[in-house]
């Protein structure tokens, strides 16, 4: 919202720099996003006693300054034709010092051409020779210096300026014609200069979306006094009572409705200063009547709506009936043509202002075309009302119709503002368009708001804010915001439920909410609301920083997160890079993890009703899919990729409309085992067992026990190179080499792609809280290598398991160090070479002991697996 410095200053005195004011407002919750200087000097880079703080500028600033010596108010005394150019005229211009001849092509002076000396000189913004103005013929805001030159034989060195040339607006169709009271020779910046604050209005500061609101805040922050506009206006016309009726059908939709009437107005342009203010505040000047409604709204925050009274009278069928305004909810699909000429189909939450013949306006949002004031209007019926916030809001969204009125009504306007707004509007219309104001207002007010009264004490301030304020100090803070405060010292009974340290002897303050704000709640909510008012006016910066003295809560930890983080640390330690991917995807994207023709599992997706793009329309069901996309994206830039992610997928859960958010671990590896270097690194492509090594190390690192790997089956994996991983007989995940047909679905390098997909919640539940450490054995170990020939089909895990079973505690380590296949041992066979460590925890083993055990092991392997000891 844009507010003007000059306008604020009509209601409160300001004794600090513009930037300091912006700073104070920002800290107090009215964030000044930008200051635009219009004619006033822009500040040099000095702030808060910082010397040479060259670039620092707390608030963004923009604008263009008018040099006071060079850009002044001038008076055009006579307009004469240019001797040699039809499109130019010559002005005899008084700049307060001397008379100049000024050349201009401004079309709005042509009507005065050749009329002789003007009875009323035209006041203009005059730029003297050497002045810096904006070059109207260059894009943007390029400054240019006025230099003496000859145009078509006439010497020109100065200029009467347009708004464009002074950086006010893009208007360059004519020069500015100032109001008659402009003092000739005065610096234009003194007469017209201004600063525009662009303030971010948060939902709780809706009351400040107007000039008075900002002025009130400044008064509270600086201790200055707020002045209100004087609304005692002459009402010379016949009484309004009996000439219009108001019928409110639902007070919740329309708590108040006020009408005033002004008759015999003469529509004309508003004074230039008014037009300028409207423009700088972001509104378009139309005519003196419309401008009056907008001006009053910008000033007081009450949106007004002007009806042509004669149109309303004309719509009444029976001349004996009074025009009657009815407010009600629209019927579904009811139609109304708004003043922008668009026929709108309405919803049942839209509130309408109607008369006996039908709808007239979208309440609080936009007027209808028919009853709008026009150039022919002479009698204006001025509406000020209060509308339901939510209905207004929904209408704005449904009709995509943001307007200044709707902006305010959808944030809340106190009904008490309605008559004030109407009076101010009538006052301005009378001033700018003449006419007589009818006596009295017609006012229907079925539902006044509560305006809560809250009781607080210094103890509340201490409890909430941690500062000590006396009741007097509290009152001094709140009264400038127009809270009505009363200090009570008495023996009111204390609420039984309250344990706050208020005793009956402590003074309390009763605080009544002023009738312009709707943001103060009742009871304890109201207290909190007042705490904010106290804190922000007192100054957040003055509240000390302290450390909490409250009881420390029970320290519960977060087991799941701790395990997840431990898992991350394991994987990072093993050389993998963590990634975090998008969790929104599409079924088509997830289908890529399956060979063509394999349907996705018949489980529901959680689907967005309003996706931004079809590629991100559902919550993912596969972390592997996210992972493969990440590998694909990096495959173009890296040959070796080793990634993991631990994050949830979203699965349907029985009996609930909400998904189960299941944490998963996905791993992907591809490319050489080590990055190629000059020193002969092992650049063999990684295979199944590189991945398995990582998984083994990870699970061991978490001290999981009873881990088993079984040949697994999963559509995404190569059927012969896929394992299911079990911990304590619970499957925790699947790992393997990607199915060649799946790999085809992605743009991936030639090297095998190894991937794993684990259920992290099972891991979390199986990680032991404790693990034992064995003593380092004293007696020396005996090492022995044995090679066993077995059938190709015999899994290595079974051989190892039998060795361990037979060896018992004495065989402390079984390490497979070689696998051999070849003619020597025959087709369909393989030789597995193990290095065994025999070690007894207590006594030293002899070679004989070891040999005995070895024989036992070999015999058992021969018997159960048909193994042969290789000589």
């Amino acid at each position, binding site marked *: 919202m844009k507010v003007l410095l000059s306008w604020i200053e009509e209601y409160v005195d300001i004794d600090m720099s513009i930037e300091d004011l912006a700073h104070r407002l920002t800290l107090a*919750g009215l964030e000044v996003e930008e200051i635009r200087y219009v004619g006033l000097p822009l500040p040099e880079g000095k702030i808060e006693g910082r010397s040479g*703080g060259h670039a620092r500028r707390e608030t963004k600033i923009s604008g263009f300054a008018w040099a006071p010596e060079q850009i002044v108010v001038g008076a055009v005394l006579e307009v004469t034709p240019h001797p040699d150019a039809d499109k130019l005229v010559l002005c005899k211009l008084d700049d307060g010092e001397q008379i100049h001849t000024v050349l201009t092509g401004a079309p709005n002076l042509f009507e005065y051409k050749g009329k002789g000396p003007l009875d009323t000189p035209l006041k203009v913004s005059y730029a003297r020779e050497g002045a810096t103005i904006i070059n109207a013929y260059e894009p943007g805001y390029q400054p240019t210096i006025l230099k003496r030159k000859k145009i078509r034989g006439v010497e020109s060195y100065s200029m009467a300026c347009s708004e464009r040339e002074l950086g006010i607006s893009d208007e360059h169709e004519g020069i500015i014609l100032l109001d008659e009271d402009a003092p000739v020779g005065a610096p234009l910046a003194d007469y017209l200069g201004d600063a525009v604050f662009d303030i971010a209005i948060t939902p709780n500061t809706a009351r400040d979306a107007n000039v008075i609101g900002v002025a009130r805040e400044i008064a509270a922050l600086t201790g200055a006094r707020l002045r209100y506009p004087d609304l005692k206006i002459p009402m010379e016309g016949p009484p309004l009572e009996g000439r219009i009726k108001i019928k409110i059908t639902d007070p919740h939709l329309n708590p108040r409705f006020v009408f005033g009437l002004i008759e015999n107005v003469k529509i004309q342009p508003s004074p230039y200063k008014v037009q300028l203010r409207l423009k700088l505040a972001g509104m378009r000047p139309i005519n003196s009547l419309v401008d009056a409604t907008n001006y009053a709204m910008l000033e007081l925050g009450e949106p007004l709506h002007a009806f042509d009274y004669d149109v309303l009278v004309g719509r009444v069928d029976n001349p004996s009936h009074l025009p009657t305004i009815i407010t009600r909810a629209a019927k579904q699909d009811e139609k109304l043509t708004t003043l922008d000429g668009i026929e709108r189909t309405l919803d049942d939450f839209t509130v309408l202002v109607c008369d006996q013949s039908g709808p007239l306006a979208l309440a609080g949002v936009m007027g209808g075309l028919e009853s709008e004031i026009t150039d022919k209007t002479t009698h204006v019926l001025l509406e000020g009302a209060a509308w339901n916030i939510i209905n207004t809001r929904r209408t704005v969204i449904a009709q995509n119709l943001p307007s200044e009125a709707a902006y305010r009504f959808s*944030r809340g306007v106190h009904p008490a503002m309605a008559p004030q707004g109407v009076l101010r509007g009538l006052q301005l219309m009378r001033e700018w368009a003449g006419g007589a104001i009818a006596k009295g207002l017609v006012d229907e007010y079925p539902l006044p708001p509560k305006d809560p009264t809250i009781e607080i004490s210094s103890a509340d301030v201490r409890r909430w804010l941690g500062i000590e304020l006396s009741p007097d100090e509290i009152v001094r803070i709140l009264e400038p915001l127009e809270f009505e405060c009363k200090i009570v010292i008495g023996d009111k009974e204390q609420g039984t439920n309250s344990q706050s340290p208020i005793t009956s002897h402590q003074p309390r303050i009763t605080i009544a909410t002023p009738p312009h704000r709707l943001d103060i709640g009742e009871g304890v909510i109201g207290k909190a609301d007042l705490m904010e008012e106290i804190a922000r006016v007192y100054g957040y910066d003055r509240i000390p920083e302290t450390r909490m003295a409250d009881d420390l809560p029970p320290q519960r930890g977060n087991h799941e997160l701790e395990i997840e983080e431990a898992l991350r640390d394991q994987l990072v330690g093993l*050389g993998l890079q963590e990634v975090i991917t998008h969790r929104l995807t599409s079924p088509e994207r997830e289908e890529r993890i399956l060979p063509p023709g394999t349907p996705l599992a018949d489980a529901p997706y959680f689907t967005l009703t309003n996706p931004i793009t079809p590629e991100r329309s559902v*919550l993912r069901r596969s972390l592997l899919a996210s992972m493969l996309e990440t590998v694909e994206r990096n495959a173009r830039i890296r040959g070796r990729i*080793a990634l993991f992610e631990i994050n949830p997928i979203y699965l349907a859960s029985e009996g609930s*409309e909400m998904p189960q958010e299941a944490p998963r671990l996905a791993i992907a590896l591809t490319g050489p085992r080590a990055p190629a*270097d000059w020193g002969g690194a092992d650049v063999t492509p990684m295979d199944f067992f590189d991945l398995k090594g990582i998984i083994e190390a990870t699970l061991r690192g978490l001290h999981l026990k009873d881990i088993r790997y079984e040949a697994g089956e999963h559509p995404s994996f190569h059927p012969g190179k896929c394992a299911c991983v079990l911990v304590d007989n619970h499957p925790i995940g699947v790992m393997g080499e990607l199915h060649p047909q799946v790999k085809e679905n992605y743009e991936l390098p030639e090297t095998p792609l190894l991937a794993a997909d684990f259920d992290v919640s099972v891991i979390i539940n199986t990680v032991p809280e404790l693990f034992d450490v064995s003593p380092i054995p004293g007696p020396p170990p005996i090492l022995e290598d044995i090679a066993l020939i077995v059938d190709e089909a015999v899994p290595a895990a079974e051989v190892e398991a039998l060795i361990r079973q037979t060896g018992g505690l004495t065989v402390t380590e079984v390490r497979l160090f070689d696998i051999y296949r070849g003619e020597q041992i025959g087709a369909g066979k393989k030789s597995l070479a193990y290095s065994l460590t025999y070690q007894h925890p207590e006594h030293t083993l002899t070679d004989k002991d070891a040999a005995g055990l070895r024989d036992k092991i070999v015999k058992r392997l021969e018997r159960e697996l048909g193994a042969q000891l290789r000589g």
Partner: protein
Amino acid sequence: MLEKLAEIEQVGLATLAEIADEAALNQWKVTHLGRSSAIMDLFKNMGEVSKEERGAVGREANQVKQALEAALTQKMAALREVALRRSLSQERLDVTLPGRAIPRGRLHPVTQTLREIYRVFADMGFQVYRSREVETDEFNFQLLNFPPHHPAREMQDSFYIQSQEERGDNPILLRTHTSPGQIRAMREYSAENPENPPPVRIILPGMCYRYEQVSARYESQFTQVEGLAVGRNITFSNLKGTLSDFARRMFGQNVRARFRASHFPFTEPSAEMDIECFLCGGEGCAVCKSTGWLEILGCGMVHPTVLKNGGYDPERYTGFAFGMGPERITMLRRKIEDIRYFWANDLRFLEQF
């Protein structure tokens, strides 16, 4: 005899002096101290020496032998020294060659920032509480004092989830902030002792979603860390102290923080915390857009309605809450200009952390 001994010694020492390598030295040892060397021969033939002379010759012979042995030891040491010097001077590496490439694992930058945040708050007694990402309107908005159609909802456009049943004002959605966890945590803890619920001191990290066109500045998914402290003795002054401490730990001990009044439906009073720009020291730069300040987090005293909805009596308990964006913090600290880098997972980005 004695002359012979003198000669043996002289010849031995002279030849030894000329030796320059270990092989020659071994040869010399055989020749001059070996079984058939002159000195050993002499010992062997000691019987031929007259009784009178035997004593003197024996002594002298021993001395010669010892002298030769000592010279040998010395020579050997000298030769080793030379060999060592030579090898040290010859075995020179090009130390500027790159080291062998070791694949290194890293945490995602957001995980790194999250862990830093966890650590700082853990030191102040805050524990991590996580809650679901798919929420209801009730938990994401209504219980947090955003009634239906509240204007503050405009800043948090939601992704909605299709549901089987007509859910009216309580649709399923992706949480727009981690704040619903505040309600879930307070309800969980207050259920333990409804009359006197325990104090709360938690941070709530997690992924959030907003209906935003993705650009360099906005992502449709982002992480957030909220904090919540509730107790019988928690003040706005504590909020300032706690968050200023956090800012100093996170951004440097000299960093100044300031608090501006703001508005959030679930806190009252509300504030935004800015810190003095740590890149330019508050002088004004491109990152702080010349303001000298960086917006870091939103915060405030927990709204009484929210306390009540969590099972904490607002007449007896107060609390503060805050929320921040780990991506934004990472971007400010690392001068990253495009938020899309985080979930694009380009290794050229990730490998810089």
